[in-house]
């Protein structure tokens, strides 16, 4: 059974592990999907993360004890997470500002950095930092770098950035200390009211290389 930690007057943090693993994230996804299929009275929203999920509720309708009892029931049903949706993201590496520096720090050639990046089997673990910033785990070990010592301001939307074991696609012009190694026409903030965010947490993502001309044509 996971640990249940009450948060303020209106939320319950359900903790499955303390360190990141696919197994812990699978339990997070299973509870998230079970809750979406069968929400309780007063349920407001759930925020899945790496090792835990926060369940937010209306305290004028229910309370921590009732929510914990309900979630224990769901977690005990051993839900299988749905099969993740496979997705493909096209990436252009031409002119990426940090490709040379990533190559220097990893001891690889720029072409080997690109090949390693393309070889990753990525999964959306959570969203965070800013609207539509989907943290994709699965970056190959050869590309793991600490973030820059200070963030760069005004990195535009549609940049493919990496740090640690993660990769993400920027959706807004924001500062970031991550390494900018590519650019994509894929918009995680879709602008489509029916499906405003492209990825669900848990989706699997493969990358496909495109040329600058193809990227600009798709943008």
């Amino acid at each position, binding site marked *: 059974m996971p640990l249940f*930690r*009450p*948060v*303020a*007057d*209106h*939320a319950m*943090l359900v*903790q499955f592990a*303390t*360190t*990141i693993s696919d197994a812990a994230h699978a339990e997070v996804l299973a509870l998230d999907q079970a809750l979406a299929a069968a929400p309780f009275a007063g349920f*407001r*929203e*759930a*925020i*899945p*993360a*790496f*090792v*835990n*999920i*926060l369940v*937010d509720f209306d*305290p*004028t309708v229910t*309370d*921590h*004890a009732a929510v914990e009892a309900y979630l224990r029931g769901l977690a005990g049903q051993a839900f299988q997470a749905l099969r993740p949706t496979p997705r493909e993201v096209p990436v252009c590496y031409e002119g990426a500002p940090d490709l040379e520096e990533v190559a220097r720090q990893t001891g690889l050639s720029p072409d080997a950095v690109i090949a390693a990046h393309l070889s990753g089997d990525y999964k959306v673990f*959570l*969203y*965070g*930092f*800013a*609207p*539509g*910033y*989907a*943290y994709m785990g699965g970056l190959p070990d050869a590309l793991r770098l600490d973030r820059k010592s200070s963030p760069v301001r005004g990195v535009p939307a549609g940049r493919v950035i990496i740090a640690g074991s993660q990769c993400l696609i920027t959706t*807004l012009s*924001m500062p970031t200390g991550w390494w900018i190694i590519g650019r994509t026409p894929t918009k995680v903030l879709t602008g489509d*009211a029916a499906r*405003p*965010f492209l990825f669900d*947490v848990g989706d699997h993502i493969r990358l496909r290389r495109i040329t600058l001309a193809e990227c600009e044509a798709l943008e």
Partner: protein
Amino acid sequence: MTRLRVAFAGPHVTVQDKGRFGMMRFGVPESGPMDRKAFAIALAALGHAADAVAIEVSLGGLTLECLEGAATFAVVGGGFIVQTGARRSGSWQIETLHAGERLVIRPGPWGSWTYLAFAGALQVARWLGSAATHGPSGLGGGRLIAGQEFEIQDTGIVVAAARPLPCPVWARPRSVVQAVLGPQDRFFAANSLEDFATRPFYLTDAYDRMGVRLRGPSLMPVGALSIPSEPILRGSVQVAGDGLATVMLADHGTTGGYPKIATVISDDLDGFAQLRPKDAVRFKLITPEDAVALTRRGARALDRYLGQFPGGSR
């Protein structure tokens, strides 16, 4: 139709509705008003539904010119100074602005935020179904900028006379806020937990819609540098690696890797947001059961207040 022009707007003056809900899983916080109770009163006083739109005015202040038509408005929240043409009043007031007149709202004796609602429908942009402005991106109804004009439709619903609105005691700033320990209190030594619960903290100038950094005893986390990013809520008291606490507010990031020593209860966040930089605040730790009971009591008090207006509700 009424047409207004922004003659001056300080920083953090934004369009808000009650918030953008259900999207924290996609990195989008609720946004909405910093003082949700004052916002609800401003809308109800003019007979609006709870999902209508108002302008949140910061300590930076706001000046509007009425170019065309007339507009009845309510200013609710904090103790701000309101000048309507030649008439001077405070917030907690319903007034009417006429063509050729200026409305000037500036900070008064207390409070950090006040709400300007108009009778009629303010025409504003929406993002993901809500007019609430997400401060860091400016998406939604947006920040007010000098020179900008906007329209109010259906201004026929005008309240007859200027009248004051009573300021309930629970709308005042709250210098003792109640919080529930955790959910990452295990990363703090006993003396840090005791300092948090007993010593005064002070709001700093690092105060915006995302949160406010506090000055006070160092609450250095122990062994927490590598915790996986976890969800954050409005009211989370997050402690960075330097031991400084930040209370996360309306436009907070939705996840983060710093431990949260405690979480302020929702009922106390409105009064907390009305404190000003340099004000002192103390945290009182309570149980989750007491937190739920207090929030229910606060919701009933607000409902009773809103009940004085026709159709008033949360």
